[in-house]
């Protein structure tokens, strides 16, 4: 009985010492986590400033930048085109189904174009870019770090920030709007394929409605978003690769961090930019 009463008491009022013992490390851990987060943000900000400074001289080496536009852009083309096509086709199907309920099939072109230009084009391209080009950038630079190639450049009096990081950053920055534009164009084609060819929406109405409803502001929103995503995602990929722990495990972790941070930041920034434009 005494035992049972004791149990009830201990369940109702946990011993204060126990609570204290759990709370202190938890507070300490969260404080350390916060400090680590602030430190990492500071390191990234300093790296970004150094990277921007290195971009100026890197512009005088267009050959290196073109090679990186090819790596980040041209090599992502197939995945971007395929994704754009299927996204457009799904939009065509869903859009037609939805608009048909209200007898507004004529607005299909406008709905698809605005969805692709303002949201799906930039966001999906950014997510695909993070998975394809971002991981490639991080692992490539990370392996250069792990195999002493960056150190060798330093010792040869060649700034790796200028030779390796800046061209890759600029390559990603330039490739992203181009990939987004291609994604949108292919997406529109896919939507037209389903809406006009399969569902029977009038071709003239599909394109003319789109022309009259889509304003320059909508196109600008898409371009600005893709430029911001290009800068942020390239920065994340290059930064993670440049500061990776020089081991196989370190490169793997950096690559994972690139995908996670890029995806979350893309969606977060998309909300912020949409709010700014509305």
């Amino acid at each position, binding site marked *: 009985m005494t035992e049972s009463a004791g149990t009830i008491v201990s369940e109702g009022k946990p011993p204060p010492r126990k609570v204290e013992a759990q709370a202190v490390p938890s507070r300490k851990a969260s404080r350390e986590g916060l400090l680590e987060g602030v430190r990492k943000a500071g390191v990234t900000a300093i790296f970004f400033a150094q990277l921007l400074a290195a971009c100026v001289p890197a512009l005088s080496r267009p050959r290196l930048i073109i090679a990186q536009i090819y790596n980040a852009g041209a090599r992502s083309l197939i995945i971007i085109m395929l994704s754009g096509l299927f996204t457009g086709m799904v939009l065509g199907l869903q859009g037609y189904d939805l608009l048909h309920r209200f007898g507004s099939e004529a607005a299909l072109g406008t709905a698809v174009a605005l969805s692709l230009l303002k949201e799906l084009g930039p966001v999906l391209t950014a997510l695909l870019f993070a998975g394809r080009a971002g991981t490639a950038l991080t692992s490539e630079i990370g392996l250069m770090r792990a*195999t002493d190639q960056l150190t060798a450049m330093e010792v040869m009096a060649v700034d790796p920030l200028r030779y390796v990081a800046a061209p890759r950053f600029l390559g990603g920055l330039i490739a992203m709007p181009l990939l987004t534009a291609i994604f949108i164009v292919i997406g529109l084609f896919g939507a037209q394929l389903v809406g006009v060819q399969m569902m029977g929406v009038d071709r003239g109405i599909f394109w003319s409605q789109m022309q009259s409803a889509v304003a320059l502001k909508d196109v600008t929103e898409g371009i600005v978003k893709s430029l911001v995503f290009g800068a942020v995602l390239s920065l994340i990929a290059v930064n993670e690769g440049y500061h990776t722990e020089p081991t196989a495990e370190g490169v793997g972790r950096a690559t994972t961090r690139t995908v996670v941070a890029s995806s979350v930041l893309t969606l977060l920034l998309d909300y912020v930019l949409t709010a700014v434009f509305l």
Partner: protein
Amino acid sequence: MADPHSTSQPSPEADAVIDVRDVHYAIDGRPIFAGLDIRVRRGLITAVMGPSGTGKTTLLRLITGQIYANRGHVSVFGREVGDMGRAEIYATRKRMGMLFQNGALLTDVDVFDNVAFPVREHTNLPEPLIRTLVLTKLEAVGLRGAAHLMPAELSGGMARRVALARAIVMDPEVLIYDEPFVGLDPISLGVILRLIKQMNEALGITSVVVSHDVHEIATIADYSYLLSEGKVVAAGSPAELAASDSATVRQFMTGGAEGPVPFHYPAADYASELLGEPA
């Protein structure tokens, strides 16, 4: 032998290309150097030896200005590394060449472009002249025929030789070798040894060789330093080190498991740990 600077060879300070004085350096509070003194004289091959983990590679990073000493002085070509700005550090590095343990070749370009890399970055020489220069250096290391190969197609020894060609392509005054013999077969090892000696004799390059391969080093070094526990424990010509009666030197030169340098990492009592008893 106890004083590394009182040698049989002349040792005027003006002759020192690299001078490391009373250097203290720690990583995360763990001391790596505690009063390190090393002097590298012009035109000589200086070996820096020591057991693994004694900070040999860290010493090279201090010399090339990748890291800075917590205390003490590191001077290269008569200038204090800690006082140099970024531009001066880069200018100093152009006068040095470094051979990395794994070669550190750029993996996305072929052997020719690897060797041409520093020349293209630092000069405006016309391409035909760069070609001649690169082929000359590749011929010197016996790999002119491998100019078109990618680094992934090279053996460890070949990669090391390409890295050597790249290190000498700018005609440096000082060549630094970080563990140049690790993982090499006897033939490649012999080739690298011969090349180090040739570079020193034919081109008059001052060489710093960091290694723990005692017998190989003994055949080419003019002067050797033996590091242990963060400082120089012995210095002298290879013959002087071989004749040393210091227990640390004897253990290192003969490869003994027991001695001043313990074989076992500090641990609890073996029997107690096996029996699961608390430490």
